[in-house]
């Protein structure tokens, strides 16, 4: 490297210069962490080693504040829950056996902060990152989903973020040929400077194609392939640009990572060809912490050693220092371990797809990760100390002082709660609710995503879950739903997290699939705030307990902390992604009634209590207080089981779960799905449950769903409910003649009026 502008900090040099000032604080390390590194190495780290430890020991990579809590996901499981789990937490993504020799891997991740700084590229690279996680398991990605949370819909900056994020998710995902099958869009002032961009990807593979991130087989080649390495993700000004640290002149590095979906699409096809021909022994995607992460994880999960020559890395920017190369988060790169015998075939496949690659080094059994630069050793570490032995913190947490007061502030006792609409006003209330930013049509967003590509999409937004076919021969497929209710979680993080889990479970079951696995994306404020840490601890405990009760394991996920501006944290937002299995996706249940269902009976499953705290109606009235609806997971399990069986046995033509907005939103959604009305009688059920009509319509009691039941199936339907002891009530009929949601004796809402209100909101704000 003739253009080298820096003095190389070698291991030998580090030994002889123990007192050199190192920028550990600027790299985000705490003093105790820096001391630990010195203890591990028995000397000061070199600049390159410091770079590696600092990124791998960051909150993002090491989960140092969260892992003491996350352990519960591994502990609260039964053998029964693990039965279909082929790869569990800890790998790039979990893998579940769905039968017929097929396996499915899925994972949800956050790309929150980058999406605030540069919404388009932040969202785009978020999609890119999660898709690479899926490829690195050996799977073909088959769909993506995106739960998005933005600030107040009428805030001037929300425009910028929404346009950028939606275009970025679409621009990247559409270019990869991955159908976008659902997600969420929420607007709440708490996300104003902290939008949440979570991205889920799902992939499928045959059992024998599962690949893991490990480097085994001494002498096997370690290869970096895909895009070239630039200064991406190092930060606008890099303290590592000068390795000698004496002339502190930070050089310019990109503040934003730019995604290249074309390069990623080529990388997908190229990797699938590598898998098909069994050319790679181990594979790892490069995401956060780039080469630092890939080399240390591959080495510590395999034979324990690796020798790499960093000068072999193909660069986009020749001024990068070794430390920067190790930290770079340039997108669209992968690392593979290949036997010498397979090298010829590997090169052939790279050439076919015009993918650049370079052999960086090989696997050793030395137990050391050794990295050289120009013949000099600049890193010599035990890879486990980098990848796995990062710090662990038991952050203090305590129930916030104001929590009791918050919970005591019941909606029903508030001014808005006492002034509840009744009679004919209820019709207007339904329209008002359906036009609200959080219940209105999300078509403005989802019409910017390709839901058709790959030809296997059986359900997508706005139905309860996205459903894709996996096996074209049998129709075997999977259903996916993502859900969070941050307002419930704010009121009670333990119960609120369970409610998110219950809703995701219910959504998947309503679509007709048997829920089998969970991935979660836990978005919270600063772990250094004991109030936030309490929210986190409670939410994790709720999810782990809930998964145990439902018998569905957590297969992986992601934690995003520090989502706060100043002292103001976002509402705790545990996003739950649930995957379900269907033997034949053509039997999926749509969320609304079709014209052909005219005269079908409409049944409401479950019972309604006065549970308006944290509800959408309360949000509309500017109220957040009280306790979230009670979650009974045994009932949810029973309901889910019934919905799956009813779908399989042809007892229902359509079904929609009740969640945000309660019965009112569920009925409106179901009518608007295909523009077919319904005649509903509320009186009997209201009397049975001891609530007024307003409460019946807008309360968000859990464990409920509406079903469209053909007349010929009513007996079987009722028999099943009776046999299972699940509350049910016939509340009306599908009416394809009068285009209205007719709440009989109360109000009749013309569908045209409802649709106009429902579909007009997002275009009104975003064009």
């Amino acid at each position, binding site marked *: 490297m003739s253009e080298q502008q820096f003095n190389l900090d070698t291991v030998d040099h580090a030994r002889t210069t123990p007192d050199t000032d190192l920028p550990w604080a600027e790299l985000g390390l705490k003093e105790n962490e820096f001391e630990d590194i010195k203890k591990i190495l028995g000397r000061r780290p070199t600049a390159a080693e410091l770079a590696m430890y600092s990124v791998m020991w960051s909150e993002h990579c090491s989960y140092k504040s969260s892992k003491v809590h996350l352990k519960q996901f591994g502990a609260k499981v039964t053998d029964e829950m693990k039965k279909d789990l082929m790869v569990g937490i800890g790998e790039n993504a979990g893998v579940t056996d769905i039968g017929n020799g097929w396996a499915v891997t899925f994972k949800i991740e956050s790309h929150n902060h980058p999406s605030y*700084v*540069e919404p388009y*590229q932040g969202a785009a690279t978020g999609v890119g990152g999660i898709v690479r996680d899926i490829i690195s398991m050996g799977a073909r990605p088959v769909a993506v989903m995106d739960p998005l949370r933005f600030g107040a819909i009428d805030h001037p900056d929300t425009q910028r973020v929404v346009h950028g994020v939606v275009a970025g998710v679409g621009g990247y995902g559409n270019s990869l040929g991955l159908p976008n099958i659902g997600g969420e869009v929420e607007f709440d002032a708490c996300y104003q400077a902290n939008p949440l961009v979570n991205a889920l990807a799902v992939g499928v593979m045959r059992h024998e194609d599962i690949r893991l991130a490990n480097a085994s087989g001494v002498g096997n080649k370690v290869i970096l392939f895909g*895009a070239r390495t*630039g*200064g*991406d993700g190092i930060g606008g000004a890099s303290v590592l640009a000068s390795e000698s640290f004496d002339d502190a002149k930070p050089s*310019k*590095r*990109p*503040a*934003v*990572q*730019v*995604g*290249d*979906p*074309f*390069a990623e699409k080529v990388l997908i096809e190229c990797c699938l060809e590598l898998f098909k021909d069994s050319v790679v022994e181990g594979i790892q995607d490069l995401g956060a912490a780039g080469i630092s992460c890939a080399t240390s994880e591959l080495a510590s999960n395999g034979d324990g050693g690796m020798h790499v020559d960093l000068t072999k890395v193909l660069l*986009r*920017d020749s001024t990068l220092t070794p430390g920067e190369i190790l930290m770079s988060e*340039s*997108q669209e790169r992968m690392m593979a371990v290949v036997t010498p015998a397979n090298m010829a075939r590997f090169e052939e496949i790279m050439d076919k797809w*015009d993918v650049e690659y370079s052999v960086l080094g090989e696997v050793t059994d030395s137990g050391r990760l050794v990295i050289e630069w120009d013949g000099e050793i600049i890193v010599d570490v035990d890879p486990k100390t980098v990848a796995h032995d990062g710090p662990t913190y038991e952050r203090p947490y305590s129930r916030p002082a104001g929590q009791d007061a918050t919970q005591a502030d019941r909606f029903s006792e508030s001014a808005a709660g006492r002034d509840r609409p009744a009679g004919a006003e209820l019709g207007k209330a339904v329209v008002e609710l359906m036009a609200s930013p959080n219940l209105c049509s999300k078509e403005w967003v989802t019409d910017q995503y390709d839901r058709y590509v790959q030809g296997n999409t059986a359900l997508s937004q706005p139905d309860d879950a996205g459903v894709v076919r996996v096996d074209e021969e049998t129709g075997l497929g999977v259903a996916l739903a993502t859900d969070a209710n941050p307002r419930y979680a704010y009121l009670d993080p333990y119960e609120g997290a369970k409610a998110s889990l219950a809703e995701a479970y219910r959504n998947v079951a309503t679509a007709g699939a048997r829920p089998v696995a969970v991935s979660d994306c836990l978005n919270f404020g600063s772990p250094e705030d004991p109030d936030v840490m309490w929210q986190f601890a409670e939410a994790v405990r709720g999810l782990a307990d809930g998964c145990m009760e439902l018998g569905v394991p957590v297969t992986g996920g992601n934690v995003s902390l520090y989502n706060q501006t100043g002292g103001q944290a976002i509402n705790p937002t545990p996003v739950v992604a649930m995957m379900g299995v269907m033997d034949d996706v053509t039997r999926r249940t749509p969320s609304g009634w079709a014209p052909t269902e005219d005269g079908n009976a409409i049944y409401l499953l479950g019972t309604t209590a006065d549970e308006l705290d944290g509800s959408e109606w309360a949000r509309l009235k500017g109220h957040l207080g009280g306790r979230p609806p009670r979650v009974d997971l045994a009932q949810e399990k029973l309901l889910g089981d019934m919905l799956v069986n009813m779908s399989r046995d042809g007892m229902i033509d359509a079904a929609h779960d009740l969640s945000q907005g309660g019965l009112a939103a569920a009925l409106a959604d179901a009518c608007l799905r295909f523009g077919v009305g319904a005649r509903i009688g509320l009186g009997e059920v209201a009397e049975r449950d001891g609530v007024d009509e307003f409460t019946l319509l807008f309360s968000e009691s859990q464990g409920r769903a509406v079903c469209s039941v053909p007349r010929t199936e009513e007996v079987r339907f009722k028999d099943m409910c009776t046999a299972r002891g699940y509350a049910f009530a016939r509340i009306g009929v599908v009416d394809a003649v009068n285009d209205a949601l007719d709440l009989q004796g109360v109000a009749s809402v013309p569908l045209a009026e409802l649709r106009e209100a429902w579909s007009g909101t997002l275009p009104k704000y975003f064009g």
Partner: protein
Amino acid sequence: MPRIIVDVMPKPEILDPQGKAIARELPHIGLSSFTEVRQGKRFELTVEGEVTERHLEEARRAGEELLSNPVIEDVVNVSVAED
């Protein structure tokens, strides 16, 4: 009508996927002299009458505030079009 040209380029340190794809295609059509391609944008802003310093100043502001995304792009040229 006189026009003001505003040229916007991706920042040098930022990945330019479009330029990269074009650079790789050039040899395939027999052009192998170029070591790198970067693709930018050219804007033409038309004004009435003579181009004044105020016009240029407004064009510079347009470049910084709207035509470029300062996070990933630079305005590399603001000048009067030579017709």
